[in-house]
């Protein structure tokens, strides 16, 4: 009896939870094996992973050939090593440069690298608050597009490079970034114009937005690449890439305008009235009161449109511009490498995933940062 009373009266000391409830075991029990249905699903999932993952790893890594001169070479190397031929990554390796730089002259490619660094540097003060000297940084960001344009196109001391030499990931970035940077201000202007009290302005904006949204991007690209030639006086050609940039920017601006209009309409009318009662002028109230709130609400929609635009850049394939996908297809037409389509598509998919996923993550970060709810 005495053993039962060996503890003092009072609170029971805290014991560690049972080992089956915490740690890995606890997690597994709670998440994977909590009911019969869950057990069945878990077992099936593990089986599927078992079926899918080893062959995939074999293909991607263990049976893959990383250095060879042609597809036959890849096959021979795999055979010599005594296994099936997995991915022939040598193909991507050999063509990596033209995937990145397109047909840009080899000795001028440093300009693309420098432009890329400048672009990243210019993005930092725009995207993040807590950077030292942000003010000066923003001035640099404003100047950067012109510097980059000069670097890429040449002239004024640099060897001029015509835009038909642009290609690969560099082309995607040029179209995507220009579209994104250009369409946001145009989109805001259109959204405000659509809500304007001036009928003429409002009608122009509505007509523009509805027209662009009513036509597929691919049609606009066709207009840019072929129809324009018929409208223009014979003998004049103006840069195909410029035409595409204009079309892509306008297209995405129309969508951005509608996204932002959604944000504007979500604001209670009291906000505008409050701004008015403070004696703020139209632009002041927009800049200080309305737009910051409307844009904040619109962030997911805006980023969604940007991601869509970025992926839509692959449509230029049908008018003969060499974006990574088109470069991939053209590479498949090289008799040395024919038939390696999976490698190409996996490679291009990874590139697009990385770009789009970063944009999505940044949008989440921005939403969290600007969150002012309770």
């Amino acid at each position, binding site marked *: 009896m005495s053993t039962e009373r060996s503890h003092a009266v009072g609170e029971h000391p805290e014991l560690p939870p049972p080992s089956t409830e915490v740690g890995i075991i606890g997690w597994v029990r709670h998440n994977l094996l909590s009911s019969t249905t869950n057990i069945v699903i878990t077992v099936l999932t593990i089986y599927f992973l078992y079926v899918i993952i080893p062959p995939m790893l074999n293909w991607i890594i263990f049976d893959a050939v990383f250095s060879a001169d042609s597809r036959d070479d890849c096959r021979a190397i795999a055979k010599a090593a005594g296994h099936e031929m997995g991915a022939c990554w040598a193909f991507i390796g050999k063509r990596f440069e033209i995937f990145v730089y397109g047909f840009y002259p080899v000795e001028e490619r440093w300009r693309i690298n420098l432009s890329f660094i400048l672009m990243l540097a210019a993005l930092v003060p725009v995207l993040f608050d807590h950077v030292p000297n942000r003010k000066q940084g923003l001035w640099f960001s404003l100047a950067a597009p012109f510097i980059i344009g000069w670097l890429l196109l040449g002239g004024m001391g640099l060897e001029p490079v015509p835009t038909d030499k642009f290609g690969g990931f560099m082309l995607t970035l040029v179209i995507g970034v220009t579209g994104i940077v250009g369409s946001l201000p145009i989109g805001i202007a259109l959204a405000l114009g659509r809500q304007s009290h001036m009928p003429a302005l409002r009608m122009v904006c509505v007509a523009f937005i509805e027209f662009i949204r009513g036509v597929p991007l691919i049609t606009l690209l066709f207009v840019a690449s072929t129809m324009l030639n018929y409208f223009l006086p014979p003998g004049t050609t103006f840069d195909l890439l410029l035409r595409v940039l204009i079309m892509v920017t*306008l297209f995405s601006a129309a969508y951005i305008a509608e996204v932002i209009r959604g944000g504007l309409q979500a604001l209670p009318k009291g906000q505008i009235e409050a701004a008015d009662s403070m004696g703020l002028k139209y632009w002041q109230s927009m800049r200080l009161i309305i737009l910051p709130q409307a844009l904040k609400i619109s962030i997911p929609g805006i980023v969604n449109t940007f991601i869509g635009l970025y992926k839509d850049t692959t449509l230029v394939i049908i008018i003969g511009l060499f974006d990574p996908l088109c470069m991939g297809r053209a590479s498949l037409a090289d008799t040395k490498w024919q038939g390696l389509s999976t490698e190409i598509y996996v490679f291009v998919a990874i590139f697009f995933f990385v770009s789009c996923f970063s944009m999505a993550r940044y949008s989440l970060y921005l939403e969290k940062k600007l969150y002012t709810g309770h």
Partner: protein
Amino acid sequence: MKLFKTLAVSAAVALASTSGAATAGTLQDVQARGELNCVVTTGVAGFAAPDDAGRWAGFDVDFCRATAAAVLGDGNKVKFIPTTGKTRFTVLNSGEGDLLYRNTTITMSRDADLKLTFLGVNYYDGQGFMVPKALGVTSAKELDGASICIQTGTTTELNLADYFRANNMSYEPVAIETNEEGQVNYLAGRCDVYTTDASGLASTRGTFDNPNAHIILPEIISKEPLGPAVRQGDDQWADVTRWVLNVLIAAEEAGLTQGNVAGHAAKAGSNVDINRMVGTEGDFGSMIGLDKQWAVRAISAVGNYGEIFERNIGVNTGLGLARGLNAQWTNGGILYSPPVR
């Protein structure tokens, strides 16, 4: 749209005022520009595709280079304009391109209705069928009821329908978009038969892990003469480009090669055909607005027709195409160039 049009027109006006109106003939334009704008594909195996270094190479590409060499003196002074099947003719007709070498089938409607001038044939192709050997089929006549992978929106689709109707057979079409897609579907067994141009079949088969497990049936069910074209209405330019093509074919017939052309050009020999081509007899270059050495430059840049063929699509390449119809008429083919004289 309005905004866009205004932009476009103002940009065009700005351009026109700086570059000056292009009113001279295409030959003069090309020479003034110092660069030949050649319309090619965005990539067809053996015919035109960028190599590992991004340099264009292929059968059609070499003809572009030969033309540039004849007109500008340098086979590298070519700007290749890659086009899809949908944009190729507009690019040529709008003046963006000077010359089209884009394995394009010559048809009456394209010649007459699309306002093109075709210059001749540089490759005789035709539609064929490929089947797995295991199927045990040896003739296209045995394909009744087969499922067939076919590229939509092409002349091959129409040819196939015509052929099966004429032979009272039925088939099940499996629509595909590109050659790549056709290859994947065919290998996965989603169709029994793959049909496209015979050159395409050969190149596709060349990429298989086990090419010998597939056969190309002997029947060729259509005529696909592939040839270059220029815009209608500039006869001098058409003459220049046509005779570059002709002289490359004639050079093979006469035995003039990339290796020996310089020697022949140095001193008149006993073969008058060769003498006329290399400019040691007569002055044929000036008839088309060029100098005496035009053909020498073209041949030294890329070789004669046979050399271009063997280098890009011949039996020793990945495509492994035999000359077949594309042999010289003296060798059992139908390649027959009018004489340079």
